[in-house]
């Protein structure tokens, strides 16, 4: 068995959301659903000093993230039906729509907010790593879409070798919960997990 992983280069990402919208087109997702989302973290102040001059400690960065196809997925653990499952061959986590009851526990449990119940479709939906593309030798649509070349995908060994570290910047939780297959090269502005400066400031765009 192989285990696939995503890579995110925070020094290159500009927050353009091409990954998110390319995925939405390919997967035919409507308003309210996104398998890949782009979080903005902004911190610090930009204020005027006593001379009326602008002084800024402001920093900010974006994180593009889909399902991390974790080694210990929170979603599969709570799934009552076994519909949410981790594929034995690829390690990709996906939904068996013929089994899914649409209870939403996977959505609640996932600390990366990857799965969501689409009531119109009657089941949970999420990034499946574009498994049909991957088995065809391609990379997921989001990865090949990135104009800034900030995303990559491959076996976890290949991805870990790119020099990033495992999912350890804000606004992500510590990786110990689910052992995510997501490696990140942080930008200069990136804040550590749990930092008070690591808040995602664009909730409207990601919920």
């Amino acid at each position, binding site marked *: 068995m192989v285990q696939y992983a995503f890579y995110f280069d925070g020094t290159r990402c500009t927050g353009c959301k091409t990954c998110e919208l390319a995925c939405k087109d390919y997967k035919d997702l409507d308003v309210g659903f996104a398998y890949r989302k782009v979080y903005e973290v902004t911190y610090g102040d930009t204020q*005027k000093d006593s001379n009326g001059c602008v002084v800024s400690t402001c920093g900010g960065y974006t994180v593009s993230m889909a399902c991390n196809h974790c080694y210990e997925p929170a979603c599969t653990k709570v799934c009552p039906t076994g519909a949410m499952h981790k594929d034995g061959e690829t390690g990709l986590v996906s939904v068996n729509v013929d089994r899914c009851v649409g209870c939403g526990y996977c959505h609640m449990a996932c600390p990366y907010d990857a799965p969501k119940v689409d009531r119109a479709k009657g089941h949970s939906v999420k990034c499946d790593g574009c498994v049909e593309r991957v088995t065809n030798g391609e990379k997921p649509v989001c990865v090949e879409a990135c104009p800034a070349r900030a995303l990559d995908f491959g076996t976890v060994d290949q991805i870990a070798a790119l020099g990033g570290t495992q999912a350890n910047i804000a606004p992500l939780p510590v990786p110990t919960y689910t052992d995510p297959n997501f490696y990140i090269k942080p930008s200069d502005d990136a804040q550590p997990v749990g930092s008070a400066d690591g808040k995602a400031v664009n909730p409207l765009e990601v919920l």
Partner: protein
Amino acid sequence: MSREDNMSKGTSSISRRSFVKAMGALGALAAAGGIVSVDSLFTGGVPVALADSTEQTTWGHCAINCPGRCALKFHVQDDEVVWVDTYTSSDAGFDDPQPRACLRGRSYRRWLNSPDRINYPMKRVGNRGEGTYERISWDEAIETATDKLEEVIGTYGNEAVYIPYATGVSATTARPFNALLNLIGGYLNFYNSYSTAQISTITPYVYGTAQAGGSSFKTAEDAKLVLVFGSSPTETRQGGLTTHYDWVHLRERTGAKIYMIDYRMNDSILGHSAEWIPINPGTDAALVAGIGHYLIEHDLVNLDFLHTYCVGYDEESMPDDYRGKNMSYHDYIMGTGYDMIEKTPDWASRITGIPAARIESLAEEIGTTAPLYVNQGWGPQRRSNGEWTSWSIMALPCLVGQIGLPGTNNGTRENSGGPTLSSFPTGTNPVSASIPCFLFTDAIDHATEMTSKNAGVKGVDKLKVGIKYMINYAGNCLTNQHSQINKAHDILSDDSKCEFILGINTVMCDSMKYSDIILPDLFRFEQVSQISTGGDVAYMITGQPCTTPKFERKSAYEMVSLMADRLGVKDQFTGGKTEEDWIKSLYENSRSKDATLPTWDEAVDMGVFIQQHSPIVSMQKFRSDPVTNALETTSGKIELFSKKVLSFTNGWELEEGDTLPGLSTVPPIPAYIPEWYGIETTTDEYPLVLGGFHYRGRLHSSWGDIAILKDANPQEAWINPTDATSRGIAQGDTVHVENEFGEIELLAKVTPRVVPGVVAVSQGAWHDADMNGDRVDKGGSINTLTTQRPSPLAKGNPQHTNICQVTRA
């Protein structure tokens, strides 16, 4: 060659993916001629019968006003687009050039099938601006449009016909309406653009034309210091092989220190906030003057360069007839001329909001670091003082002689451009009168008052007649992308002024609601089309129709052919050729000049042709030999003082605030002039400055109606926490932004990424107001709040020069 033959060329069958797109159902219904609700189909089930059919792919290009012109790879099944891919591959390395489409390009399927898409010719049945239309036949539409055209020309002459500025279609055959009008006596010309009026006007005075272009971004890989004024390369040109990719690539490859001077910590800075130098908007000229003062005081100016290559820096380099008048740039900076104020870093600090010590340290770095690459976007120039702001930024590398050398730039925007392709000949316009494009509503409202001295009228001293007939092809500049929408509405909705407006578009955007007749357009990727563009790398895209034309939509070329036929000039217009014939013959012409271009058939097969070239160093020839390679300026040199500006604006009717105190012309040097509605001219009523910016979710107003893009990219007013807190505004609150010109409603983005005292609203949101009611624009279009007063020299749109108040809704 028939369309079917072409459909089979340049396309390939691929095996069907394991799951099928719901859009197949739309195809089935659309083909049956029914009008269907797109929304219901996006969420609908998948017809099992379609699961086995094969998918084909076609190449096409984006045609909107972004140099990206991205490669679009349409996956088509049963004559319906099922998804939109781009030029990409799984094995592409960071250095491999691929014109990948941006988020908007990847959302084209939603626009193709948008509920706002125009399907049939229509005629207006309500008042102008109301947007009520009735379907008519093509015959009736063409007859009405051409009869009225002949009537207007007969009554008022050709100067009463106008094609307003528009940015919806770019391709080698995108200007057929101009060609038609030139065959029947011409039309009122325009000059300038809404993108670059001020910088395009001033640059020829400073650098001439032929050699004025900027360096490639790639050139900055050799720089040690990169200064970017008012630009967000990744937001403004998101897709393709243009500045988004080039900027990201440059930042990783260059060893240079980078500073980005902007009133917003824009998206291009994200992740690298140490690069951000926050500045009060509209004050870049003051910053440059303050830096100049430090450079002069510390002997860091390059006098050899200034005396050899420039005119007007100091007394020694002034034109003979202007010596002894204290009119040099040096006099301006050192307080020995003009306003007699010394432009010390302290002085600059009070205006720019940049601490004096920071200005000094920046000046020290500029004076001691080479190569220096100075770059500016087009934001700083789209202001009431934009001509002089952009000129100042060009003056900065001149002061230290960092022009024409490896790793440098001349302070203009980075180079862009693709393989040179010939365009459809539009003929010669027999009408010589020309107006600044920004003043078209004036030319509808009070044309006969407009002269060369008060409104930048060119070709004639004054206009004879107002605009009575407009062809608005692929444009949203009548209202939405023009300024002061409420005033524009009042002028346009009065059909006794402009008597007829022919609108051609793919969607019912705000400007289309003023059309008397509407014709349904095809996208360029629904027809054969070709385009070239590029940034560090040049490329060309040759596209085939992704599907057959749906409903009664036609290409612009077909529409014009029908009009030309009725006007008796069809043969002259077509030259006996179809549009595809034209594209091919134009391409053969291009190939005859550039042997590296592939054959037509090869171009069709490959879809995307990439042409690598060496990085361009701006003004290298001039630097190496300024006599042989003299510039087209009055002096042949770089002009930091322009006699021509003085003579050209002599006798002009200027308004308060258009120039420096004591001058009767506009300033002949790159001086700082406070904006009319700017950081120094806020009022108690409107205490905040308001600027616009390009937003990832739209390109101008294009895609402004696409729900999934709006969902991911909400329309927001950026406001600093200091200004928000004092107004009781929290993140995500609905707020009203208003000034004397109108009121908009949108969400608050409370963020330290914008300097205090400044509000930033992305331009291009679709105007959405009850124009017979309160006129509050719930779409949040910034142009509800922008002024129609033109900038002093260019007579261009100062759309970032605004003041406002913000309140919680």
